């Protein structure tokens, strides 16, 4: 599984070339590393949920780490910066939402569709209910309407994102709870939500940019990170 020695990645080592450039490139490098750490954490959580019974301690620690990163990113405005770059792509959002349902997984790996952090954990919920269609639909189910253009969206996004992200992480644990249903209602509560979302997507009533967060990852993430996220999603979809 794991060869002798470890590949050094992320924050490891002092021989980071980018870090030696005085300040100029240091900050984006830190951001990039932080982003990849966040991606890694989310992938781990995703893999956790693909196991039949996740290790609760490990899940809690990873989720706390991801939450910390997200909070720091929100605090130093990185989250806002990311969103600002993507106001122009708002029009793609609506296309994307229905596209998900139609595209093959191969096309998806081209990097157009990446689940946002906020809907990420909802994917977990649906994976557990073994409803792949709803898995796709939740990408569009990010709450609240928002103005896709300009500054208003920027400002609204930041607390929204934080709220949604928090909610996503919360839902991860909500799903852990639901894994042990105490009643029949619990068993079906997840399924109900997803069907609702599927309906709204298909009837096109949710026309707002629920895909807004996809843009976040599209442009900011490195290509490899993007692909790995997509590949994970592919893996889930293929399971159907």
């Amino acid at each position, binding site marked *: *599984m*794991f060869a*002798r*020695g*470890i*590949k*050094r*990645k*992320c*924050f*490891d*080592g*002092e021989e980071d070339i980018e870090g030696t450039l005085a300040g100029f490139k240091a900050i984006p490098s830190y951001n990039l590393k*932080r982003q990849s*750490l966040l991606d*890694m954490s989310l992938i781990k959580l995703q893999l956790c949920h693909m196991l*039949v*019974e996740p*290790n*609760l*301690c*490990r899940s*809690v*620690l990873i*989720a*706390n*780490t991801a939450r*910390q*990163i997200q909070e720091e990113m929100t605090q130093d405005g990185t989250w806002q910066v990311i969103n600002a770059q993507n106001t122009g792509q708002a029009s793609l959002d609506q296309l994307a939402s229905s596209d998900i349902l139609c595209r093959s997984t191969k096309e998806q790996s081209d990097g157009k569709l990446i689940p946002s952090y906020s809907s990420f954990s909802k994917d977990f919920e649906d994976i557990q209910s073994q409803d792949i269609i709803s898995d796709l639909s939740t990408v569009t189910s990010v709450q609240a309407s928002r103005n896709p253009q300009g500054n208003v969206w920027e400002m609204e996004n930041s607390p929204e994102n934080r709220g949604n992200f928090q*909610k996503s*992480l*919360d*839902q*991860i*644990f*909500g799903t*852990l*709870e639901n*894994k*042990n249903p105490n009643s029949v209602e619990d068993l079906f509560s997840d399924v109900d939500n997803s069907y609702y979302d599927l309906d709204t997507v298909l009837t096109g009533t949710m026309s707002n940019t629920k895909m807004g967060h996809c843009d976040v990852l599209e442009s900011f993430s490195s290509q490899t990170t993007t692909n790995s996220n997509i590949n994970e999603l592919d893996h889930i979809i293929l399971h159907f």
Partner: protein
Amino acid sequence: DIISTVEFNHSGELLATGDKGGRVVIFQQEQENKTQTHSRGEYNVYSTFQSHEPEFDYLKSLEIEEKINKIRWLPQKNAAQFLLSTNDKTIKLWKISERDKRPEGYNLKEEDGRYRDPTTVTTLRVPVFRPMDLMVEASPRRIFANAHTYHINSISINSDYETYLSADDLRINLWHLEITDRSFNIVDIKPANMEELTEVITAAEFHPNSCNTFVYSSSKGTIRLCDMRASALCDRHSKLFEEPEDPSNRSFFSEIISSISDVKFSHSGRYMMTRDYLSVKIWDLNMENRPVETYQVHEYLRSKLCSLYENDCIFDKFECCWNGSDSVVMTGSYNNFFRMFDRNTKRDITLEASRENNKPRTVLKPRKVCASGKRKKDEISVDSLDFNKKILHTAWHPKENIIAVATTNNLYIFQDKVN
């Protein structure tokens, strides 16, 4: 199979190991040879039995692993030995007894068990016990099941020798050894809304002398001491042990590496030891705000935390143990290394448990990891450490300097040189 727990009994004569396949193997120390005063008895296999089997929870569609998470011995009260073994969900009390005699001379049965024709019985005799080859039998005496929703990580026998606790990620239950259909919940940290969960229980232990006191550690690096006399549900701690974080060492991994993987009281009951990812800390029960001693196990890993997070090694749960006099503590590391810290002399040593590097009956050579810079001869650089070879479980004989060290598949027993 992969060893998952190691434990000496109270006299040190027996050593039990549990493995991933649900088996328990007990080793017994040979009686000291009077002619060979320079070595203590060797440990040989005494008994092997299947403690837990894999189970399937049909309601949740989950398989329950048979891996033995912990073994704890009861103090010996009669000829038989008793131990508790647990997997993720069920605790079992096993009786291990010896049989070295068997009755012979039945009236109605032949020696092989066949019934005799009653008409051939002309005289009556009293059956007598005759010696036979030693047979060690293990039989389950109690099964404590269905009390844990989450995975059991600890069991601990109370000093009253009548009760014990079992802890899972979110709850701790109190049992009576005689009663299997009931247990009392004494700690419950499950939030009403699971979405608010940020902390889990990682280990728990009863105080060795005070039967009302126990501690439990958390994934956030805190230890709570609880007094069962205060209330039935000990959600409110009597003492909270936590060291404030060093701001210069803060990183995204700070919480993960502060998560406590093991907590053990000293034999005296005055101190307790905790193991987190990089260090071992000794706490005085009278001082909550910081440990009295801290020992770095493998500080050279601090700069590698991101890689260790990526390959999941950062979640490895190392155990720790005290020697019989509480003067030395021991814990495991990677590359089949294990470390000992002498609390009095403040000296520490790194040793390796491997067959290639150590012939039997030779003195172990101290090892050294080169953190940075030029590697000296015989030193190992951090990058060539094998992170698959981890020593998670170690145990120290309660009275003598004999230690048991478990690598992934093998058990090593070392003893100090007796002059």
